[in-house]
């Protein structure tokens, strides 16, 4: 009997690698300090500074702080959940193309790179909006700031994740069309 979910061994291997990376990433994020997350927090702090006009400086144990803005980019702001979700979504979306070992390895690597770059852009957007709300540039009326910040995070992350996935899908579809046209 044929089923629509039939997968070859490279697709299964890629899925196992992606799920293992997500579980390991979650465990790592749970205990990681600001210094250990520097590989993602440092470029984010620089990009947020460029976008919102702040000057974030690293303070050991705390994170990246702008005293004038009175805003801190701490480990909880790293966006690692977004990065893991983006990696998983890109791998799931790319599964049909992972028919060989080479294709699977290439897809996994490109998913990791895209997830990292996407995280920097989307997380910078989320923090810049949060800073604007913190400054009062965006009026949230009588709503609780903590709750609005939380909803803003979910909406920006999910919107960014869908946009990143749609972009990857469009690029892949375009490549397939181009290959068929040749």
């Amino acid at each position: 009997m044929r089923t629509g979910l039939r997968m070859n061994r490279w697709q299964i291997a890629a899925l196992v690698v992606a799920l293992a990376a997500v579980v390991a990433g979650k465990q790592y994020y749970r205990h990681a300090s600001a210094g250990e997350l520097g590989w993602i927090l440092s470029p984010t702090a620089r990009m947020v500074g460029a976008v919102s006009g702040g000057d974030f400086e690293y303070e050991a144990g705390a994170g990246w702080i702008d005293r004038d803005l009175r805003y801190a980019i701490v480990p909880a702001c790293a966006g690692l959940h977004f990065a893991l979700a983006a990696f998983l979504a890109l791998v799931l979306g790319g599964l049909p193309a992972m028919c060989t070992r080479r294709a699977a390895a290439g897809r996994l690597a490109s998913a990791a790179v895209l997830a990292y770059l996407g995280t920097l852009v989307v997380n910078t957007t989320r923090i810049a909006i949060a800073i604007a709300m913190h400054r009062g540039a965006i009026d949230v009326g009588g709503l609780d700031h903590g709750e609005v910040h939380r909803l803003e995070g979910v909406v920006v992350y999910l919107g960014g994740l869908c946009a990143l996935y749609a972009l990857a899908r469009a690029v892949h579809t375009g490549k397939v069309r181009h290959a068929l046209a040749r």
Partner: protein
Amino acid sequence: MRWLAERLRQLGWMAVPIAAYLVVTLGLPAANGAARSGEFLRHAGWVIAGCVAVVAAWGVTGVAAGAVATFAARGARRRANRRAIPRVASAGGPS
């Protein structure tokens, strides 16, 4: 209803990124035993609300873009038709 079903079918691709997000933000913490805490349920409520908001916003944007494209295509077709039909009065009238 068919129109709505068609719109939802077109948004089907969003299931993958949303499922990935739900696995990371709700599935794994729930598997680690966080589901028992009230704070987790509150967080889950915000995540679900965010999902609904993003799907609705994407759907509305898609409908609006589709309406604009249809309107523009109709206008272009009408202009092309007008250009294609010869003016009877000027062609057959006295010169």
